[in-house]
């Protein structure tokens, strides 16, 4: 930039240029160029590991999430949750700076743990890392042991920790090690041979829908089976406004979590965000350990209920059978609004498998399925799901693609609606396709995370949002002569 050439004049982009490019980015030619991208990622549909770890931490009783790394990281994770839930997200960091790069972060961790323990009176501090300590290779195991030895925290105070490098996987991959570490820290040594506490460990996986957690608990109550719902954020991120701020509302009771290895059975409801945790269960208990699909739609919910029924030798409660029937009723009544409609869906792999399953149940076509960080196994699993239905034929699975890819796909091979988080809204604006908001994050609408998307009521909710979005669209876009009272 310091060359000695004559200084150029300020130029303005002409309207013609803008119009030309505006058209061009909707073309097949542009799509080809766009899909060929190798380096640049544009509008990705995923965040980084520590976010998942922090979600887990918020889900345990009295637990303070603790970011070992730069303070800005913690601010980012916290505000991401603030915006989605419109709730506090108390978490601290140990504010590593340049000197950390040189000397490592042990001193920051010491001081941080001591202050956090003193100021915020947590029952547990859950430590996870952001990039910096991962790059420089901080040894958390040693550091935390040293912190105990040096009295920065009491010897018996639980400090689970997880390595959650942001340059590997996504937020769902940070969920797993943090959960495993918490369970191992609290109860890794508490397995009692032959003991069966009669309860179910239920592991939702990364899920930012508080309504889902409440629904899981309601289901288990209906079964009358004691349940330890792991990383239960339903109260942490949906607490009453009473005039008194409580930084730790709700969460999985630590005592229950500590007894996890003595449970009657363990079920995970996502497979991609719970792998390590489930391995840990399998390695440490002889009780049944099952990984089921996320129960979105009728069939996947059936699967969960049947499994619970089988594991606990209890019939599915009539209350839930009736709910099922009501969901099927609603779906039948509204099938004509979704039948053969094409959807573009983007999000986390387990969630995608669930929503796709639901759409297929409705005779809808999950036409563009986009998972921004995933692998061939996911692609295969998804393809197998698509193959179970004629409505899955000719549908497309896109892995390791982003929302700018999706924009090109929808511009050249359109769909009737998008389903996904708020980040898809630019596609819907540009292409005039409605967005049904679900998943994480939703920072431009209120309360949606309070409504379950799992289970039978979740199916009704999804159906309501989708069908009524189409009906709204008809009423807005139809000609006067087709504007009608009934739909």
């Amino acid at each position: 930039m310091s060359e000695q050439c004559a200084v150029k004049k300020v130029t303005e982009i002409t309207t013609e240029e803008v119009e030309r490019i505006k058209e061009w980015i909707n073309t097949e030619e542009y799509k080809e160029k766009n899909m060929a991208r190798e380096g640049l990622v544009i509008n990705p549909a995923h965040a980084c590991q520590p976010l998942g770890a922090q979600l887990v931490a918020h889900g345990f009783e009295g637990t303070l999430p603790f970011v070992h790394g730069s303070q800005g990281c913690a601010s980012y994770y916290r505000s991401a949750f603030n915006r989605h839930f419109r709730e506090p997200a108390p978490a601290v960091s140990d504010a590593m700076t340049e000197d950390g790069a040189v000397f490592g972060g042990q001193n920051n961790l010491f001081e941080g743990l001591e202050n956090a323990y003193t100021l915020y009176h947590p029952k547990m501090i859950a430590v996870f890392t952001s990039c910096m300590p991962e790059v420089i290779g901080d040894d958390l195991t040693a550091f935390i042991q040293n912190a105990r030895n040096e009295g920065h925290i009491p010897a018996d105070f639980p400090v689970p920790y997880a390595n959650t490098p942001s340059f590997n996987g996504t937020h769902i991959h940070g969920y797993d090690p943090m959960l495993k570490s918490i369970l191992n820290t609290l109860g890794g040594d508490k397995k009692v041979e032959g003991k069966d506490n009669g309860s179910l460990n239920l592991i939702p996986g990364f899920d930012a829908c508080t309504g889902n957690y409440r629904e899981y608990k309601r289901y288990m109550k209906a079964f009358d089976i004691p349940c330890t719902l792991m990383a239960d954020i339903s109260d942490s991120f949906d607490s009453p406004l009473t005039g008194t701020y409580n930084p730790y509302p709700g969460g999985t009771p630590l005592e229950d979590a500590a007894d996890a290895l003595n449970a009657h059975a363990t079920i995970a409801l996502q497979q991609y965000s719970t792998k390590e945790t489930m391995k840990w269960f399998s390695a440490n208990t002889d009780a049944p350990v099952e990984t089921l699909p996320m129960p979105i739609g009728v069939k996947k919910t059936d699967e969960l209920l049947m499994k619970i029924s089988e594991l606990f030798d209890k019939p599915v409660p009539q209350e839930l059978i009736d709910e099922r029937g009501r969901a099927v009723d609603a779906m039948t009544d509204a099938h004509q609004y979704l039948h053969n409609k094409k959807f573009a869906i983007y999000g986390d792999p387990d969630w995608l498998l669930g929503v796709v399953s639901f759409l297929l149940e409705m005779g809808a076509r999950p036409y563009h399925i986009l998972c921004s960080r995933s692998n061939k196994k996911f692609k295969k699993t998804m393809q197998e799901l698509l193959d179970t239905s004629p409505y899955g034929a000719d549908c497309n699975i896109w892995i390791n693609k982003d929302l700018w890819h999706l924009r090109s796909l929808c511009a050249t091979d359109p769909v009737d609606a998008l389903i996904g988080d708020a980040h898809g809204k630019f596609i819907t604006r540009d292409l005039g396709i409605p967005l049904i908001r679900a998943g994480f994050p939703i920072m431009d609408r209120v309360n949606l995370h309070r409504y379950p998307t799992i289970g039978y009521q979740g199916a009704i909710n999804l159906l309501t949002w989708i069908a009524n979005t189409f009906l709204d669209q008809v009423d807005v876009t139809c000609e006067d002569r087709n504007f009608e009272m009934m739909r």
Partner: protein
Amino acid sequence: MEKTNKKNPLEGITKEKTQELVEKTLDLYTEKARAKRAPHMSANDPEDSGCAIRSNRKTVPGVMSARGCAYAGAKGVVWGPIRDMVHVSHGPIGCGYYSWGTRRNLVDGTMGVDVFSAMQFTSDFQERDIVYGGDEKLRKICDEAKELFPLTKGISILSECPVGLIGDDINAVAKNAAKDLEIPVVPCNCEGFRGVSQSLGHHISNDTIRDHIIGTREFAEPIGDYDIALIGDYNIGGDAWASKKILEEMGLNVKAIWTGDGQIEHIAATHQVKLNLIHCYRSMNYMAKVMEEKYGIPWMEFNFFGPTQIAKSLREIAAQFDDKIKENAEKVIAKYTEPMQKVIDEYRPRLEGKTVMVFVGGLRPRHTIGAYEDLGMKVIASGYEFAHTDDYDRTYPEMDKGTLVFDDASEIELEKWVEAMRPDLVASGVKEKYVFQKAGVPFRQMHSWDYSGPYHAYDGFPIFARDIDMAINSPTWGLVKAPF
């Protein structure tokens, strides 16, 4: 300091009581942390600046800080708002993801065509990039950006933590790419671990603008006597548009905005303007000084919050120009006097005597004081996330005696102060918002204008007044206590 129906919002606020509160607050800490935090908070005495607040220090580990990082300062504040460039968050996925669309720096244009601010570009570092370095990928990214966005006027490369740790040479990549692609490609080493807050990110970014941009363009049209630049307005919710509007109404030509709705070539030609007007002193005073030194451009601070400060600023700005501009300024002030009075007449009776605690970044902890006062309110506590001494020097005189001034507060301090001082409004960020609402305290996000705005200039004040009123007087507060 109990809350009463007092008309005098300062009643009961004394230096002694405030200092007592400070001490009680510090009691929460360990000795070590107490020693670190003590210099960052004090009861104000506008006449005696001996009470100087310590600032721009490392955040105490383990407290709940509101601060961001250097990257946040570079991406969110300085570079991100420049609309016609592709800003690459260089490193892992998260930093770009979390800062995507969350700062409301609005722009004019067609997204993905000639403007790109609402988009998120990242190199999405993977393990292999950490191990083998990301320079090659970065070069590919520059090429792809130019190919897919042919109207881009440049590329900024905003480094995240790992880049600075693994020894990548983004300067070399940028230099080559700039040459090949024939657009500015600006490397910005704003790794999050640098410095103590987003403040260093502003500075680093300013340096890169100085080194790579300033002076590389000249305006196509001849320079006029009334050409100015608007520095440090990030167009949150349209602020810069509101500010620009009245500056132009008084006859000035706003040739460049730094950086809200900014155009890089206009920024590059800013060295030609006659005056730099600086709103957010914190983030950009350095650049004003650079341009003064290098190009002899005078600069001045101003304040466009609330009609009192706006009128004062318009007159001060006009004083830099000839009589025509001075007359124009009076006309503009006259034109807006009645509409602003109507706003005050509507809202002041509902807000008279209400108190505010402010804790934000940039210019707002002092600049918004006058706007509250226009509504009959008092700021009884004010603090900055990432200020420097010069910010505090400008703040003491604006705050009443005995009010609380503080720096880089941790959340637990804020809780303590709110509990004791019971302000009628807390004006802070999203991380604090729901904490204080849970405590039953009205709140407005004052970084993002709580998704409203603009708040600047005459267009902004009616919106500001409405928003403050609805926050404080929303009937939902009457529902908080259950009758059972």
